[in-house]
């Protein structure tokens, strides 16, 4: 293999769906042994491009060269035979099969139809050790592994079939910092062996750490290709992705955080056995409180419990002085609490239903007389609210599935805006949301707070918590270990607090 000829060259790739030009002429060149980062906002065409690459989709136009020869990626089997493997965001493993069975699923080692158990397990161990994870048991069922370990299993599966190009779609989304470091180590080992990596992530700092070159997509076209990571400033990347430069992502806070008067939300001594205990929290009208902590520290569970989605063993939650029934979401919603859940697609949205139905689902009573709905009024109000948040594309009869992550989040926010909630709980509000839409969501959250809503934000990104919140609570192993104004604490101090226990 010569070094001048790239392993993969895609040129002029066009993919149309009815009514949508998903890819309008994409160029991508990947060399053997490099980490090639694919950047772009949601809806820029990254997912479609990956699917063309893994041959789930057939392009309408364009050429694909592999190893210098033109190829047609006509079926996933062809792509696999060439050595192209993709690890999607949602891992596609069978939870009830063992690690070894998952790795060799579809190309089982067998003699005359009988599976070679011993050989399968031996080869599995080899693969896992090559990935630096010899501790994962080959016979364990995948469903009992952590998300990080499951991802390693997916990579082992890719490697089991002689992969030369590995596509990783937002691999760090489910990982904490230590696991990400480990993933990067694995990636470096693979590139040292000559495997090419296409790496997709929203986190620009990661790309800086791991990437060699960058291709940027916008609105289905390549706007920059083969940029060297070290020579390209982040501001330029953001500008390429969004078509504008963003300097201040976070909206300015109010003059003074309003902490006088009765709190809107009051949580006293809340406990969920084995997850968290003794959580006190009070949030005033117009205040944004952030919860920082590691994945698994109990942040999301605190939100879900005070929302009634989990039943606490002790403690009280009051909204405007009224005590909520334990473990009752309808009661919390009635009292004016709203939640934008962590897993937006699976917990927050009715993906195959129209936008307006997703917006009005929590306020149906308001549009009903004797149980009969006034759907014209529903659409009108939903349109007002979604337009006030600049949800794109406009039109409330579209299916939510067809929207980008940022716009889907706006639909969830519209739901609670319409409901005129008093307390808004946001769990990872910008996960899977691109840089441009993030700033918009931050602005929406701040303006909601300014209008008198009490907001609680949970995020894995410390920067986000510090930038958005007025007051910060740091959670470690189910306990609040620090509470104070966001302006008096910095990222490294938060990380210290978060890590303290594990360092000891």
């Amino acid at each position, binding site marked *: 293999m010569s070094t001048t000829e790239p392993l993969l060259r895609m040129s002029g790739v066009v993919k*149309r769906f009815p009514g949508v030009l998903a890819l309008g002429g994409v160029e991508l060149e990947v060399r053997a042994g490099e980490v090639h980062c694919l950047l772009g906002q949601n809806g820029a065409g990254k997912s479609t491009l990956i699917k063309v690459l893994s041959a789930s989709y057939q392009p309408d136009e364009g050429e694909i060269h592999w190893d210098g020869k033109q190829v047609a990626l006509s079926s996933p089997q062809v792509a696999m035979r060439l050595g192209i493997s993709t690890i999607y965001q949602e891992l596609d493993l069978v939870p009830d099969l063992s690690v070894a069975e998952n790795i060799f699923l579809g190309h089982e080692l067998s003699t005359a139809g009988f599976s070679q158990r011993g050989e399968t397990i031996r080869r599995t161990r080899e693969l896992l050790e090559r990935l630096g994870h010899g501790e994962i048991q080959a016979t364990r069922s995948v469903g009992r592994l952590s998300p990080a370990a499951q991802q390693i299993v997916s990579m082992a599966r890719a490697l089991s079939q002689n992969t030369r190009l590995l596509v990783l779609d937002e691999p760090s989304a489910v990982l904490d910092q230590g696991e990400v470091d480990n993933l990067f180590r694995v990636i470096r080992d693979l590139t040292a062996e000559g495997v090419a990596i296409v790496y997709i992530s929203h986190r620009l700092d990661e790309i800086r750490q791991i990437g060699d070159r960058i291709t940027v997509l916008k609105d289905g076209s390549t706007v920059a290709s083969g940029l060297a990571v070290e020579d390209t400033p982040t501001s330029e990347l953001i500008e390429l992705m969004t078509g504008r430069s963003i300097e201040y992502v976070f909206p300015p806070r109010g003059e003074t955080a309003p902490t006088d008067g009765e709190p809107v939300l009051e949580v006293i001594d809340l406990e969920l056995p084995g997850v968290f205990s003794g959580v006190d929290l009070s949030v005033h009208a117009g205040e944004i409180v952030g919860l920082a902590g590691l994945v698994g520290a109990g942040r999301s569970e605190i939100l879900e419990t005070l929302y009634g989605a989990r039943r606490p063993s002790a403690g009280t939650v009051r909204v405007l002085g009224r005590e909520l029934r334990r473990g009752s*979401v309808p009661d919390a919603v009635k009292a004016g609490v709203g939640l934008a859940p962590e897993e937006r697609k*699976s917990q927050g949205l009715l993906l195959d*239903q129209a936008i307006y*139905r997703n917006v009005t689902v*929590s306020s*149906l009573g308001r549009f*009903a007389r004797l149980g009969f709905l006034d759907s014209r009024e529903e659409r009108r109000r939903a349109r007002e609210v979604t337009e006030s948040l600049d949800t794109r594309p406009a039109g409330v009869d579209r299916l939510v599935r067809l929207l980008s992550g940022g716009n889907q989040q706006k639909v969830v926010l519209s739901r609670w805006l319409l409901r005129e909630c008093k307390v808004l709980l946001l769990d990872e509000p910008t996960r899977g949301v691109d840089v441009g839409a993030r700033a918009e969501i931050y602005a929406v959250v701040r303006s909601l707070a300014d209008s008198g809503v009490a907001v609680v934000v949970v995020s894995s990104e410390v920067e986000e918590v510090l930038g958005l919140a007025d007051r910060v609570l740091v959670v470690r192993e189910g306990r609040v270990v620090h509470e104070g104004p966001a302006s008096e604490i910095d990222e490294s101090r938060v990380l210290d607090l978060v890590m303290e226990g594990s360092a000891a």
Partner: protein
Amino acid sequence: MSKHSTTHGVEDTATASSETVRVEHAAAESGGTSRAAGLMSGPFGRNLGLVVALLVICLVGVFTAGDRFASVNTAMTILRLAAVVGVVSIGMTFVIIGGGIDLSVGAILALSSVWATTFATQAMAADTHWLVMVFVALAVGGACGLVNGVLIAYGNIVPFIMTLAMLASARGLAEIISERRTQIVTVDGFKDFWSADVLGVPLLVIIFALVSVGGWVLLNRTTFGRRTLAVGGNPEAARLAGINVKRHTALLYVLVGLCCGLAALMLIGRTSTGSSTHGTLLELDAIAAVVIGGTLLTGGRGTIVGTVIGVLIFSTLSIVFVLNNQDSSTQAVAKGLIIVVAVLLQQRLARRSIST
């Protein structure tokens, strides 16, 4: 669509070449055709396919049986045949859209028919008003549905298993109460009312029509229907949106139970009997009608109109076979084929609507 393309066009600042703008316009134009395609694959188009299927079966009937098929009498026979299974299928549509299934409808119908006719056959027949039968049938159906619903929603029993258990025990209870004898209704008022014709249309058919219209309104125009779609489409999202998913699920089974009670009364009216063998395999007919009507077995999507046409397809098919002196076995084979073809078509349509 045009608005979409213009906002996008404005957004493309530095990188926007005339070419991308042209491409955006092309996309906007093809959007027009996709809307038409969307209409075809939406409820309208799907039902259009069903209507065509029904017409084809009718044409076969006309060609093979001629005037014997193309008569008002035959039409009424078809509708009367459709009425009982139709009422149950409307209820079943709600349960399936809500993400569940009810295998016990036939057994609940049998139990309702037996329990109601017990009041009309034994010693108390003389001083029992026939409205008592109506009340008993609906109460038994609703109660069975409530048991199903509560144990599924609050006891976390899988619907398939719970209603399978109900299927066995409700029919067993019907056998115990009736001592496996057919109970003949002797209360006059009941027969007079339920087998009456209104302007030449059997009351059974009118009830089926009313239940269908009521079901359509309930699904498409009320909070109950909207919640049913939400609960079936994504139960977790529905729960976190503040919908009481457990209570709603329980109510869906009560609804189908009430439909079974009503269907039991209709069947008693048609046959003058209550029996523990009434409604045998009714669950399969109802589920088949719902599924070929385009309702997803996974929940979240479905139409009442589709179900009604589905029921009519099967009952028309039966009559065509009977008029051609074909036995019920051939009919069963044809039924199976229709189910497979309908589901295959449905999958193709679903795939097309997802890729748009």
